[in-house]
């Protein structure tokens, strides 16, 4: 049965792995240059000065290739589900060839098992090799200024793409078996995969592990006086420039008093009337986003801000909720394992459906 499954996959497998090879060649040719640039511009920058300029300039290298890789990493698992998963069984049911396959001297259980295993293996291998190449290529850029927990980056590096691809493949195979027509199966696979990915990264990933809470002084964290989402103007806090928080995934930075009550705008206004003269500052990115929030004092109001923070720090402090950077691989492993387990469950459902409903 392996022979037939491979014969059916062969053409598209060769084309797909060929495309991967072509991409790998491009990455192999440009990757060493990125390492060299990192070593010559970013690494020595503390001794030269202007580090943020060097980092920004380095981040724009191979901009086209970076954008291309972002797209490739985002769509590859979905495409594998749509083009390898959905037609795997749907096309046989649609064109009637299952009647040829199931009446050879091979049970349909083995038929399904072989098809799922072989194409699933190719899917995992493709996603894994792609991610390996991309993660390697991106390493200097990531080291320079990317938080690997960042929403999209997290799913474009490491082992998570393998989990996504396997899951997309299994969704496609099962939907193809149930819907029995190739095109509708492909469309629903795409929708289902995107929906699960979004729900997982938005709602489930932050709860995989309980975050760490740490308190910091206002002086180290207050970074602006602004109105967020049209609310009243108040002090805002970011993450302090603390080595332990480098590349951490910051959930929130809240200014609270000893009993945990948040700092009210009224309390700020009465304690620091001078801030009202500074005027509205541009709101900083919300602390819940995973990116590094750089502490930038409000222009022209830096001194006033520091004075205010010092005044309030007797009764207030900042509580930072975050996932430490060293949990990155724990998150990668957890998310990959969950998606792989979902894929295996869907595969099991396919066997059940094949026996219960298709006869």
């Amino acid at each position: 049965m392996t022979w037939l499954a491979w014969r059916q996959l062969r053409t598209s497998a060769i084309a797909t792995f060929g495309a991967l090879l072509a991409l790998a060649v491009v990455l192999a040719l440009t990757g060493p240059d990125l390492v060299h640039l990192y070593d010559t511009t970013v690494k020595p920058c503390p001794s030269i000065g202007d580090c943020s300029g060097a980092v920004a300039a380095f981040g724009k290298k191979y901009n086209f290739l970076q954008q291309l890789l972002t797209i490739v990493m985002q769509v590859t698992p979905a495409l594998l589900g749509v083009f390898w998963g959905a037609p795997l069984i749907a096309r046989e049911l649609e064109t009637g060839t299952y009647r040829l396959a199931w009446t050879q001297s091979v049970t349909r259980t083995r038929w399904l098992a072989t098809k799922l295993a072989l194409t699933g293996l190719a899917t995992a291998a493709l996603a894994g090799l792609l991610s390996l190449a991309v993660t390697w290529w991106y390493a200097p850029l990531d080291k320079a200024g990317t938080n690997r927990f960042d929403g999209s980056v997290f799913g474009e590096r490491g082992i998570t793409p393998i989990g996504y691809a396997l899951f997309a493949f299994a969704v496609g195979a099962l939907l193809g078996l149930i819907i029995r027509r190739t095109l509708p199966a492909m469309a629903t696979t795409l929708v289902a995969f995107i929906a699960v990915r979004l729900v997982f990264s938005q709602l489930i990933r932050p709860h995989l592990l309980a975050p760490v809470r740490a308190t910091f002084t206002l002086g180290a964290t207050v970074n602006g006086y602004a109105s967020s989402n049209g609310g009243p103007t108040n002090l805002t806090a970011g993450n302090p420039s603390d080595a332990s928080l480098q590349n951490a995934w910051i959930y929130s930075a809240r200014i609270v008093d000893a009993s945990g009550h948040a700092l009210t705008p009224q309390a700020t206004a009465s304690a620091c009337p001078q801030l009202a003269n500074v005027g509205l500052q541009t709101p900083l990115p919300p602390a819940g986003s995973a990116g590094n929030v750089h502490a930038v004092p409000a222009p022209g109001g830096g001194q006033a801000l520091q004075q205010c923070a010092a005044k309030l720090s007797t009764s207030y402090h900042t509580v930072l909720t975050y996932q430490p950077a060293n949990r990155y691989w724990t998150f990668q492993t957890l998310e990959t394992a969950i998606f792989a387990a979902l894929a295996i469950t869907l595969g099991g459902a396919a066997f059940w459906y094949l026996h219960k409903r298709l006869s």
Partner: protein
Amino acid sequence: MSSALTAEGLGKRYGRRRWALTDCTLEVPSGHVVGLVGPNGSGKTTLLNLAVGLLSPTTGTISVLGRNPGDGPAQLARVGFVAQDTPTYVHLSVADHLGLGTHLNPGWDAQWAKNRIDETGIDTTQKAGQLSGGQRAQLALTLALAKRPELLLLDEPAAGLDPLARREFLQTLMVAVVDNGVSVVLSSHLVADLERVCDYLIVLAAAHVELAGEVEHLLATHRRLVGPRRDPKNLPSDWRVIDARHTDRQTTLLVRTDTPIHDPAWAVEDVDLEDLVLAYMSQTSHAERNRRASLRMQP
């Protein structure tokens, strides 16, 4: 003689309401070429799919060569199947299909398959999707026979073929049957085809078995009678009237009887297979029409 196919109270329902086959009881001895005939939608495909294990019964039982259909690789190896419309993998070549047969069947006769394809003149490098209907049917037949089955089931294999291709197909089928000693069940609604190859007949109509038996026996026990007009009630009790037509002065009957007919009032004629099949099929359609009419009259 052992039985090729046995069904008892066999029924298959699709969805919640549509019965494709009901209460089908029959026994087909092995060593025959069985014609399974009936109008479209009469349950031929369903019966064959049940026999090969593609479907499982809703009611009753079916056994093929003494075992459950599709029950493990060994049973699958004993039954060859040519599905309706002879499906093939359009993107795979003819040689790939032979490779498929080699790898999926322990009893595969590669040499025989190769010779068969060479005889038909099909280019083995061609993709199956580029074959003509006749060539595709020949390929499907080769796949089904080269696994060396004890029973070969064919579902309307010649339906889409032109008369010449149909004749070639049936010829190769008959040669293979003689060479391999395989039992065959062949469904068709083309009686002329069946007449040439079958020695056993099953008539299915409206999801029921109407008639089953050896062709020779069936032809010997059915007679067409033409005589003066009679009331059907006054006929001998051992006659089963399959079809009756009356004009003002004359009555034409198709009857089944085991006893010879000596009444000189009747002109006795032999029937051929086509007469027989049409009579049984139209009998059902009359009955079906009456049943529907009576249903409609109910409030």
